[in-house]
């Protein structure tokens, strides 16, 4: 995982909601767009209980775009649900998540 670049601004931390499905995406997208300017972003996925393809697609895209801008993205934590879903969709690598631990 990339480390913080030590710019002037502080790293942003984004917490994912428990129900991290389509309905939550618009708000999350706005938050992530804001985070693109930060030197580093830490995502907390520990609370995620429900997640869908739309959410994982958004996170994948964010990570790809942030990295291309030279910003770091790291996970503070990720729930089993989140990891399992990313594994199912073949996005573990793209998201740099730990491989799913069977529930």
């Amino acid at each position, binding site marked *: 995982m990339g480390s913080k670049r030590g710019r002037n601004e502080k790293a942003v931390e984004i917490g994912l909601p428990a129900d991290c499905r389509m309905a939550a995406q618009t708000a999350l997208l706005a938050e992530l767009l804001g985070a693109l300017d930060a030197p580093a972003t830490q995502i907390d996925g520990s609370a995620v209980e429900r997640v869908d393809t*739309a959410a*994982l697609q958004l996170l994948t*895209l964010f990570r790809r775009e942030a990295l291309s801008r030279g910003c770091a993205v790291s996970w503070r934590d990720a729930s089993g649900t989140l990891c399992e879903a990313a594994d*199912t969709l*073949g996005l573990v690598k793209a998201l740099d998540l730990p491989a799913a631990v069977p529930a």
Partner: protein
Amino acid sequence: MSNAGLAQFQQVFVEESLEGLDTMESSLLALDEGGDGELVHTIFRAAHSIKGGAATFGFPEMASFTHEAESLLDEVRGGKRAIDKPIVELLLRSVDCLRGMFDRAKAGEPLNDAVSDGVRGELAAMMGRAAPAEAGPARRGSDQADGWIIRFQPHAGMLAGGNDPLRLIRELAAMGELAVEADLSRLPSLDKLDPSECHLGWTIELKAAVKREDIAAVFDWVEDECDLAIEPRPSAVVTPAAPAPANITEAATARGSREASPESSSVRVAIDKIDSMINLVGELVITQAMLDTFREEFDPAKLPLLQQGLTQLARHARELQESVMGIRMLPIASVFNRFPRLVRDLSQKLGKQVKLDLHGEQTELDKTVLEKIGDPMVHLVRNAIDHGLEMPDKRRAAGKHETGTLKLDAYHRGGNIVVEVSDDGAGLNREAIVGKAIERGLIRSGEGLSDEAVGELIFQPGFSTAAVTTDLSGRGVGMDVVRRNVSDLGGTVTIRSKPGQGSVFTITLPLTLAIIDGLTAAVGEERYIVPLISIIESVQLKPDSLKTVAGGGELFRFRGEYLPVLRLHELFGCVGAKRAIEDGLIIVVEGDGARVGLFVDGLVGQQQAVVKSLEANYRRVQGVSGATILADGSVALIADIGGLVRLHGQRKAA
């Protein structure tokens, strides 16, 4: 999805698709007559829906057939191809093929037949390429492999439709070990992302020996919302040989399960009908609450209020009944709409010019009546074009317009629906009919026969044979069948004809089969309902007015003719009935073209009877069309006059 659940949706799909086919057909006909380009879009949309549904509900042959038609339509829609007569003709035949496929799907038969294969080839040929190989084997390839590669590319709108690839891939994971590779190449930039759209794609390797159809079943619901390819793993094909028989068995099994599911029909109800019913139920509840106040204590001074309440209750109950009956009422347009095509095809075949005039398409009819009136009407329309309307040169010679007019009209009259099929053709050929009737021994001579009586002749069973259609220039093709079908619905059919001016067939039908107006007759301890529509009159006979004929039959004289007496107590074995003819009453009834006198003890009164099916609750009984519950809670049987007449005929013959 369980089989039962899927079957339920399948039925809706079939109903909607048949409606879609009707739309396609009527739009094609309109297009043929120079309609605007918007019609092409309508036709395309209908075809597209059928294709999508067919794929979802497991009719790949139908989906691939419709796909061909859709491709052709797409070219027309896109302006790549101009619509012309051959295209309309071909698309109309495609509609027929699809209808045939739906029929075969219902019957559990293979969907494709020689005709559909032919039309499919023509569609492909028109698109300038060879017909693709049959969808099943071609798309399916081998159906057995010990591993599969699934390429799954959802369309952007799939997530918004409530279908989550995560769930689908999880289902696949339940089948065996998966290696999932996500395709991120189509992801837009973050600021351009609509989170509800899907831009991911997947290549999934399933390392398990499952059937292809099991994998396809996972994607059943999204087949229209994604690009999907299921291929055996290159190294994993077990037996690529003989895929076709495997498909057939599989398809047959699938159909078998469809066939086993019970078939029920449904009816779509306009929301305003439901609203009005809810409103009436509300009124009923209010009235009931008002009447409830009398339960506690009854003050005689409040009698007028009670009477008023009861009147209201009766009115609301009646209105509610009418309103509930109204649910079964559908516009006759669904029957009328099949005729433009029939008239077009038939007139082209016969070289006649026919203009079809439709009136009263919005007239509503009971769903059951509607379903059964189609065939007799087709018969009448065919006859009108075949035998009624003349060839253009003959019409010109008679001083008429070359184009004949065939008019279908439906309207309410009294408590009945009247459907008229009229033409401005040559009318009945009196001489030919009388000649044929004499030859067949139906009459001795035509002298003194009124036009009406001559018209009646064509409804005689002995009159219509295959030979008549060619020998006779008048009408007479299976008219007895038409009459029987109509009378089975509790209706009548009559003809008026004027030489050189045309004929009018009038079908009179009851509004509904669920309620009949009848006279309640007493026979011993029993009560029978005699439908009002068949009653001519009731008479009391003197002892000496009854003539006994050889074989035990009894006759009485009624308006110049002798009619047989049917003693209901004998027919139905009632105890305690009156036996002397002067003690009881004769109800003169008409059914199946014959008049008879029903001997009963007496008449109790007239009433509307709600018909309960005897067949559904017990079994079919000859001479009885159903049962009803009387006010005192007892059961009364409803006499089937046509059946009684036939029963009498059988006894006479025995």
